[in-house]
């Protein structure tokens, strides 16, 4: 899904190493400082870049934003709770004898920080995955001198995930056409059948794929096309500026 969205040529052609370093430093500065304002800034910048450069449908945006945000919010909310032997400042619930389930101002602060840090990191990861096709990620692997085996493995697994998912989906559809959803029992049964046949089929598939690789002169090593990227100075300056601003906002926030 992420790979089928339109991405502007400009951002796609920027050297993926620059994009990766940029994304990583934004995430790092968010995590190190954990200051909500800095994170909010980082988050909004990322979404401005994404929306300006990728043609995403509203439906897709809702889908990819809403669920993770909900999840992050929920888990951050859980963090704000604490168990203590004194009454909390904001909320407390007696469990046994002297122990209370409490919520303190401290806990709320912690939760808010956690929420914004994760949301900002998530947005940055979205930026990276929307603007960088897998091939470019392979390129990043190559520049950081990742062992060849890992790069190849990554690529094949990436391809395989889609094949297996497709298989699982079509089997499930075929089962549903034959009333697999009728009762809870038939549903469980169908699922077990589906999983086991996906397992066998994907083994078979991998043999076929290996044959196909052999037939095209594969001899133990996959070579990758060199890609030409532009090292846009404008983007580098913008990136440095954004990272700097995130750090600055966080530092200022911490001081005051």
């Amino acid at each position, binding site marked *: 899904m992420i*790979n*089928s969205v339109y991405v502007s040529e400009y951002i796609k052609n920027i050297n993926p190493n620059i994009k990766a370093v940029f994304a990583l430093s934004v995430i790092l500065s968010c995590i190190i400082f954990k200051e909500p304002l800095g994170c909010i800034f980082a988050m909004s910048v990322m979404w401005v870049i994404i929306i300006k450069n990728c043609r995403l449908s509203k439906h897709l945006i809702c889908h990819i934003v809403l669920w993770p945000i909900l999840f992050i919010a929920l888990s951050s909310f859980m963090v704000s709770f604490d168990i203590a032997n004194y009454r909390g400042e904001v909320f407390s619930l007696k469990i046994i004898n002297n122990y209370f389930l409490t919520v303190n101002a401290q806990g709320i602060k912690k939760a808010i920080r956690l929420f914004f840090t994760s949301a900002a990191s998530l947005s940055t990861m979205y930026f990276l995955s929307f603007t960088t*096709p*897998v*091939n470019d990620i*392979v390129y990043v692997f190559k520049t950081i001198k990742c062992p060849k085996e890992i790069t190849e493995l990554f*690529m*094949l697994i*990436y*391809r395989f995930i*889609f*094949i297996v998912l*497709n298989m699982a989906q079509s089997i499930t559809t075929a089962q549903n056409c034959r009333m697999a959803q009728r009762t809870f029992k038939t549903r469980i049964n169908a699922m077990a059948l589906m999983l086991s046949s996906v397992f066998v089929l994907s083994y078979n*598939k991998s043999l*076929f*794929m290996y*044959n*196909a*690789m*052999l*037939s*095209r*002169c*594969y*001899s133990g090593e*996959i*070579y*990758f*096309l*060199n890609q030409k990227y532009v090292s846009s100075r404008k983007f580098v300056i913008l990136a440095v500026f954004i990272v700097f601003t995130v750090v600055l906002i966080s530092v200022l926030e911490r001081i005051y």
Partner: protein
Amino acid sequence: MDYIIKTQDLNYSYHNGQKALFDVDIGIKSGEKTAVIGHNGSGKSTLFLCLNGINKPQKGDVFFKGKEIDYSSKGLLNLRRSVGIVFQNPDDMIFSSSVRQDIAFGLLNMGFSSSQAEEKIKSISKFLNLENLLDKPVHALSGGEKKRVSLAGVMVMEPEVIILDEPGAYLDTVNAKTVYKIIEGLSQKGKTVIISSHNMDFVLNWADSVVVLKDGKAVFCGRTEDLFLNNELLKYACLDEPQIIKTYKMLINKGVIKINSPVPKNITDLEMLIK
């Protein structure tokens, strides 16, 4: 002889003991259009994998240009440069993340540099009408697009012999026509093209010679006309008679055309005969 590929007493069984080929003796002439036909499970795909050196026969030999296949890794690489195979199911053939990278796979393995590969990819994608798919990830392609990409990946290596396992499978009529046109272009370039197909009308029209497999045995290897006039053989091998041949026989019976008139390959030929 000018057989580019020949097999002798070829026997192949799969690891699970399933015997798939028995004493197959066939010869394929250089530059000819050959169709391999037979019922489902008759061993067509297995035979193709033997011709490319992927299945190593337990007994018998495969000859390429008069020489026995050398099953050392270097010999196999050499063979696979000259004999390309496009699988039945394109999903088995495409394993890279983007179309461009996938088409480049064979070229880079053959030792071309990235820039040389790019050049070749450009021209093949123009030929196969894939230009605007090049940077797409492969899982976002339709069945017909995948088929064309898998064709491109083999054609770009420019092998002398191209084997296509059911090239019409998964394609709508428009795309099937394009693919058949591409195949026609290959034979015009002097390549040896081998196809498996279940479409008898197509085989009659297209093929110079035919190999018929039944239960893993080669029961016929010869001219296309000779096969389709042989009713008993067709019945024995569970094959359909093409419509054109049926009409041709009927017209002979009714005395509309002469008994020894040449066998028509398509509607146009038949029309000419009647005139």
